[in-house]
């Protein structure tokens, strides 16, 4: 469960779908639809921890921005 501050979350689905953003407070939860690109931002001065369950044992992760070395 979320603890600490709140999180600003958002996702965007396929072409034609609208961009969705929400603010999650401790005790709240949201779903990111399959294949959607999603993010979490902590804009507060406190740390946040969260838990995310995924309906696959091998969910993978495709980042749209890769780390530069």
């Amino acid at each position: 469960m979320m603890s600490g501050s709140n999180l600003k979350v958002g996702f965007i689905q396929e072409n034609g779908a609208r961009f969705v953003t929400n603010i999650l407070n401790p005790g709240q939860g949201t779903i990111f639809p399959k294949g959607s690109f999603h993010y979490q931002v902590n804009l507060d001065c406190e740390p946040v921890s969260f838990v995310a369950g995924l309906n696959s044992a091998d969910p993978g992760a495709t980042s749209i921005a890769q780390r530069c070395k």
Partner: protein
Amino acid sequence: MRRAALTTLLLGVILPVTTQIADPTKAAIIIDQLEDAPTSAARFNLLKGRDVRSRRSLIIHGSILTHGPQFVFDFNAGIGVGKGAGGNITVANVADFPFLVGQGMSLTVGKMAYVSLSLSVSHRSKPFLT
């Protein structure tokens, strides 16, 4: 000042290289065995180390598949952790927690520092974040 402290949390980019599987080949063999099990009960026995005693060296790696902890994933053990400047995320997926074979789910725990960003990411599945 707060904006200046904006840090980034990298997720999927780092995950594959920071897992604590000593030998990925052995991990793959274990997961193959579990996936080939004809029944859920057979899979359970494989996890318990029964029926494969002669190949026991194959089913022991790290602290995951010894004794009884193969049924417990410790999010504090530093396994499956991806670290970024703004925090870290621990992923319990099938590679680090073979008990998940056939279960169709996984779990992540994220810790984000103040003013941090988790970069946009997409999965083959649906996260329920709470």
